[in-house]
């Protein structure tokens, strides 16, 4: 099928990133914008910006009939979903299929299968791929609590329909098992409309390693190597890199081939990511498969030299993959930092504010996928991630040095961000040695948020001298009195 006009059903940095590739491929492009939404880079790149409506901005981006109607109305013959929102919604894919609009992604059947963690896990296990010890509520709801106990502590409760860490609870003591199950069930119902749960053994000090795969839907699947995503806060990644410092060459081949095998088993079409829990001893277990482009896909692009969105568009247009496995290199080292509007010293509380000044870093081996513009507003309508800073260098040590320099030069004034926190992580000796787990940020919380050198004198001076009212007050009074300004009775 030919694709000539692409609608990007997303926003922020990912919409801008997809639009750039689509335009470079000569496609006409359109993107959505909610009436109350700030202008972002994507709106300046797209040929066409279509206003969508909804009680909240997020609701509008989740409104399947409205988005399908937009695609038809503007004559888009394909829709790229980005990540999040409707990217893994089988109903959306089915609605597009019915409307004869190409979905840039896998079939609704595969999304359905992989979207149900329980079914996905059973599917993977049946085909001989490794999974962690677990108990599934649906197998026999009446005995779920007992079977959870039998998995052993610590254990992790997850909503069957979940993702992104939502509703996940770690249980370390039997006394809290039942209340935690109830909380997880409520969260599952609210986020996913589905309160079914499963538990699995919580692997201590695990690493999160995932593999980028791409299939043509005709039986050909390749992998684009792994990404290490162990640096997480609240189960959400904030630093990703490739290659993983944990893997030996043989382990790397094993995990990447396992991922490609899983994708082959579903005759995968498009870009996908197979996520694994990697135990310190070297064993790895299938966690889930994300049937979309990931936030952290740029690190893969930096080391392989492939444009993954271009590959997605090729596959969607029926042109197949542009490369065979042997043609996909892993050159140098790449690190991504997620720049988020949040206060790392206050438990990552989301921050809001006006972007008064924006100056993003640039230079050799530095890429910024940004979703913000100077003068914009950061609200809590959407995810707190503002942009992604990606660096590439010859080896890991140089990549870390480059990332530090770039994040230090990332100037965002007007809203609190995590740039200083990201820099503190990059500086940490355990990060430098690569000896981390998904618990790293929590374990090192005090070190990572420790105040730096006391420069309150400088800050006070800068704040006072840039305070127009303070300055004009003192400049208006006669000089003799000015000299006495510090006097008080």
């Amino acid at each position, binding site marked *: 099928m030919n694709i000539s006009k692409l609608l990007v059903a997303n926003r922020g940095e990912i919409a801008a990133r997809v639009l750039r590739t689509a335009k470079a491929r000569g496609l006409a492009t359109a993107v959505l914008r909610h009436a109350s939404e700030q202008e972002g880079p994507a709106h300046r790149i797209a040929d066409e910006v279509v206003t969508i409506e909804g009680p909240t901005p997020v609701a509008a981006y989740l409104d399947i009939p409205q988005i399908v109607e937009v695609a038809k109305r503007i004559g888009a013959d394909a829709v790229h979903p980005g990540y999040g929102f409707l990217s893994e919604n089988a109903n959306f894919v089915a609605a597009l299929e019915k409307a004869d609009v190409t979905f840039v992604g896998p079939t609704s059947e595969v999304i359905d299968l992989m979207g149900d963690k329980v079914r996905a896990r059973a599917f993977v296990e049946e085909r001989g791929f490794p999974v962690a010890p677990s108990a599934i509520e649906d197998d026999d709801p009446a005995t779920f609590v007992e079977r959870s106990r039998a998995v052993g502590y610590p254990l992790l409760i997850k909503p069957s329909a979940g993702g*992104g*860490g*939502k509703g996940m609870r770690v249980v370390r003591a039997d006394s809290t098992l039942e209340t935690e199950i109830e*909380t997880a069930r*409520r*969260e599952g119902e*609210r*986020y996913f409309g589905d309160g079914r749960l499963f538990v699995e053994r919580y692997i201590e000090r695990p690493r999160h390693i995932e593999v980028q795969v791409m299939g043509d839907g005709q039986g050909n699947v390749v992998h684009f190597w792994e990404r290490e995503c162990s640096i997480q806060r*609240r189960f959400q990644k904030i630093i990703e890199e490739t290659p993983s410092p944990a893997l030996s060459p043989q382990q790397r081949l094993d995990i990447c081939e396992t991922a490609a095998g899983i994708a082959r088993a579903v005759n995968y079409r498009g870009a996908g990511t197979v996520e694994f829990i990697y135990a310190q001893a070297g064993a790895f277990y299938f966690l889930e498969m994300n049937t979309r482009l990931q936030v952290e896909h740029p690190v893969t692009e930096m080391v392989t030299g492939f444009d993954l969105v271009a590959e997605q568009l090729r596959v969607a247009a029926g042109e197949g993959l542009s490369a065979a496995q042997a043609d996909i290199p892993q050159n140098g080292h790449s690190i991504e930092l997620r720049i988020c509007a949040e206060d790392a010293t*206050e*438990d*990552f*509380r*989301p921050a*809001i*504010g*006006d972007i*008064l*000044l924006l*100056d993003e870093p640039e230079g050799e081996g530095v890429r910024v996928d940004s979703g913000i513009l100077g003068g914009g507003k950061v609200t*809590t309508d959407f995810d707190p991630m503002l942009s992604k800073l990606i660096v590439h260098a010859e080896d890991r040590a140089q990549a870390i040095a480059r990332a530090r320099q770039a*994040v*230090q*030069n990332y*100037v965002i*004034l*007007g809203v*609190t*961000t995590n*740039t*200083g926190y990201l*820099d503190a992580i990059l500086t940490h000796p355990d990060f430098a040695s690569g000896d981390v787990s998904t618990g790293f940020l929590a374990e090192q919380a005090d070190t990572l948020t420790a*105040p*730096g050198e006391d*420069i*309150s*004198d*400088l*800050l*006070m*001076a*800068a*704040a*006072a*001298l*840039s*305070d*127009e*009212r*303070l*300055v004009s*007050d*003192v*400049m208006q009074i006669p*000089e003799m009195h*000015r*000299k*006495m*300004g*510090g006097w008080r009775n």
Partner: protein
Amino acid sequence: MRRIFQIDGEETECWLSHDGNELIVNTPDGAIPCQLDPTGTPGGHVLRVRGRAQELRLAVGPDATFVHLNGQTYAIGRVDPAERLAGNDGGAADDRIVAPMPGVVVSVNAKPGDQVKEGQPLLVIESMKLETSLIAPRDGVVAEIPFAAGDSFGLKATLAQLAPEED
């Protein structure tokens, strides 16, 4: 006039004077002679404090001043002492449960007039995709819970208020 600047959770009252050559930032801890000159880049300035020059980027927001200095970003809260005095303080701090972050109310488990025990959950909120129970900070009587399930609230909103303690 004077300002209260908040740096790293600490408040310092400050006022300016001028010695004929340069401005002096005065605080209860001492006087800082200093000078701030724009460099031409957006927000770019050179700050001279006690003879030492320092490049920085700076932006003044409605209630905070933001400074990017040596690769780090700082937010300096700015309060007008007169406005603070005029403002309504809203009762003792331990009577109020203040939103630790913006979010949505999931459920309300108490109502005005209820006698509650320290540690008793008063409401469940959801922020940043996680549920949190907000508990009574002490034994007391619920005076007000201004939000209902489904309502969203901002940072530092008062989510529950206990009646003042009687001596």
